[in-house]
């Protein structure tokens, strides 16, 4: 499964739900923490931690309006299940890039 992010372009996500608005900054901040945690886990071969984080992103991303995070999480989870470090690195790079380029517009 691949995410639909385009290299180099700003990614606009529109949020029009007042209930969710206040949760978004922390959600994205936690995903940035996940990037660091996954990189560290990959260095010591801790695929269980990576699987759990990928699974969590898969289950939560779309609920906050970030379908790409669900997709990337799914890919990370699948890669962790088969202990594929190259794919995990690729997906975590994609996540990192997404988080840098995503711009949330509150409507």
């Amino acid at each position, binding site marked *: 499964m691949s995410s639909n992010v385009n290299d180099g372009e700003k990614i606009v996500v529109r949020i029009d739900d007042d209930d*969710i608005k206040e*949760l978004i900054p922390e959600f994205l901040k936690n995903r940035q923490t996940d990037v660091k945690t996954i990189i560290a886990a990959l260095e010591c071969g801790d695929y269980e931690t990576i699987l759990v984080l990928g*699974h969590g992103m898969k289950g939560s991303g779309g*609920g*906050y309006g970030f379908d790409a995070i669900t997709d990337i999480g799914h890919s990370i989870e699948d890669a962790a299940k088969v202990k594929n470090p190259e794919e995990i690195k690729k997906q975590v790079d994609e996540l990192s890039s997404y988080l840098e380029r995503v711009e949330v517009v509150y409507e």
Partner: protein
Amino acid sequence: MSDAKLKILITDDDKSIQALYYKGLPEDFFEKRIVGNGSDAIELYKSWKPDIVILDIMMPVMSGYEALKKIREMEKYSKDKSSVIIMATAMSSKNDILDCAKLGIQGYIIKPFKHTEISNRILSYYQKANPE
């Protein structure tokens, strides 16, 4: 349905998901408790006797499946009304729901979900299990 709030025990280890449940279940209808693993869910189930239990399948310490087994086992020896149990899982794990169905569940939630949709879905499962 009576005017009394429904007691709902939500079990999910992911804080982002916990926040969605909290936002999506209005205070007018639900008295909410949220825990992060199946073992804590069992302890709270015993002391609080919720009307509804939401169990995420994949959790640390004790999975939702194991918690479901224990709750249904406890209910065999209890005179209290059985709780409505709803399993939650990510979209690629639907087969897990089938395993849980064998133990008796009243519904399921596929993640990711929108918090605006969760309340009606849960109430629908509850009302189906408790027709007036």
